[in-house]
């Protein structure tokens, strides 16, 4: 099995505060890993460190993606290399139609792959096809990005972007927050459609619920900036029963 993402002894901070403290994780091609942790464990920080958000400083450690040094890459380079962050709180961008935004994203990826830009007709066809599966209609993609979208619509748009960009590594940060059960099924369906034995996922969550729909190969318990225990999907169930307190104490 080929490793896709290799994180070794990662330390990172925001301002003066160290949040990631000696984090290790290897994700191979085709694997789905869940990272579960209590509030304040540093879960969102982990997702931002991996995607290169400004303000998150890596103080030591290495991250390799497809063997390349990820830390040296800008946020946009990481995206073009195949990393996608499905955000907990997708950002509203007034004045930018969703379709325009999606087209820029698609063409940025195509340019990176030395492919010609997709023309409008081809692009709209792609968006319609993928959108239909997620219950996203043409009206929705004419609206400005996420502006006035319900929680469910925002997450569906995240999933649509994932479906179109087809990343090698999808990072899902609390993908179920703000979703009712029907919306959750739609989103999980979109995510599962990308599981083809090649693509990998890092599912970050503090509830086990999501993992009923996106079943992980591995589960890691994340507390105080590093992984305290790893196991298979049953670890999530155990966690649900006992709560985090037991595991955090084990350390």
């Amino acid at each position, binding site marked *: 099995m080929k490793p896709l993402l290799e994180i070794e002894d990662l330390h990172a901070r925001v301002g003066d505060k160290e949040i990631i403290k000696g984090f290790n994780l290897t994700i191979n091609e085709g694997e789905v890993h869940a990272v579960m942790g209590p509030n304040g464990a540093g879960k969102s920080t982990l997702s931002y460190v991996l995607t290169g958000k400004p303000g998150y400083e890596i103080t030591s450690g290495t991250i390799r993606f497809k063997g390349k040094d990820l830390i040296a890459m800008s*946020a946009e380079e990481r995206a073009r290399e195949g990393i996608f962050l499905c955000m907990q709180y997708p950002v509203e961008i007034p004045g930018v139609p969703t379709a325009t935004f999606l087209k*820029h994203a698609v063409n940025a990826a195509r340019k990176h792959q030395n492919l010609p830009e997709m023309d409008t007709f081809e692009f709209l066809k792609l968006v319609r096809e993928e959108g239909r599966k997620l219950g996203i209609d043409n009206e929705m993609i004419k609206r400005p990005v996420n502006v006035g979208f319900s929680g469910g619509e925002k997450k569906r748009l995240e999933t649509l972007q994932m479906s179109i960009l087809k990343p090698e590594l999808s990072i899902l940060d609390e993908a179920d927050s703000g979703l009712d059960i029907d919306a959750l099924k739609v989103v999980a369906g979109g995510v599962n459609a990308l599981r083809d034995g090649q693509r990998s996922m890092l599912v970050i969550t503090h509830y086990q619920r999501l993992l009923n729909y996106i079943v992980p190969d591995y589960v890691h318990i994340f507390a105080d900036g590093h992984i305290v225990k790893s196991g298979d999907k049953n670890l999530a169930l155990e966690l649900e029963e006992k709560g985090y307190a037991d595991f955090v104490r084990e350390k």
Partner: protein
Amino acid sequence: MAGLLQNASLWGDDIPWLCALREKGTDVFTRLGVPGAKVEDWKYTKPRLLNADDFVLPEAPAQHSCSCGCEDYCDEGCGCRRNIPLDAYQIHFKNGFRHPEHNHFPEGVTVLPLDEAIAGNEDCRRYLGKIADIETAPFAALNTAYLENGVFINIARGIKLDKPLVIICHTCAGERNLFYNLRNLVVMESGSEAEIVEYFHYDGIEKSRYFVNVVNEIAVGKNAVLKHYKCQDDAYKAAHVSLSAVQIKAGGRYQNFCLQKGADMGRNEVRVKLQDKGAEARVDAAYKMSGWATLDTTTVIEHLSPETYSEQLVKGVVDGEAKGVFQGKIHIAPHAVHTEGRQLHKALLLSDTAEIDCKPELEIFADDVKCSHGAASGELDEEQLFYMRSRGIDEDEARRILVEAFLDDVLLKVDSEPVRNWLKTML
């Protein structure tokens, strides 16, 4: 070598009323001069460039030939003609002198060189110099001192102009510090409708210095509709000062949109008098600049009658060490009840050294009115930038998209889709 007031031989010195008007302009400008730091109206925009002593007045072209040697203006690289992608009537000025043209206007539409109108048109005489108050506008006084070139437009009662009328002002200054004036008079008779676009640009010599001084006097008659758009794209060392003075009769509607993006010192001032019941004005503007430029949007809206309406949205993007200025005054006269006046200014600062000065002024002397103003300035949203970058979009591209999005809603105030699309390409 000389300052702004020079002895010039002007056309029409045998027309007493014209001479009197020019003389008054000279007197007022002599008295007011180039405004200094103590003049409240010019507190933020310092017209230092205009204290130069090397101004040269352009000479009337012996024949209308172009620097590239063609007989007429052309599409060659000399920039003597810059077509804009609009199905429109076009009037071209070069250094303030009008080029011959081949427009065929429909019946009821009178478009004359200003001197011709002064010589023979009653309406021109009735309105010229009567709408703009030069006592409070030094450069309008200066413009009046040189009153000669420009265009007179009259749309007769009930006539709707079928295409936009575009006034294109080319400046070819070369090495000279050129200074010229342009004076336009627009008379919209009752129930008439028109769209007028002003476009200022230069011949491609980026470093040329010059000063364009424009005054538009506009009379909007009963139930008439005038949409007045402008794009100022002058050279980056140039100065551009413009005053549009507008009076609106009952039920008349006036819409003004100005995009300023060129010049080192640019000021676009719009003064509107809502004279009778039901008169309505929209005065919107956008500005975008970097370097060391100062671009000033100044508006004065006077509600002089009950049930009059005004709305303004002004948005600007400032980068580098540039400075954006917005001064907006809404005056509501004592008896002007049931009026509505709204004003909003928003600016985006793209650098730490960019500056915004904003001065809203509300003078409300009547009860029972709705009046509001707001101002906000900020930077590009880091969360939005990261969101776009995390989707693979280049940082520069993401910034460009966000700036465009910021200006999008003010551009939407431009009713005419072809004009709006053209303005978008100028950003």
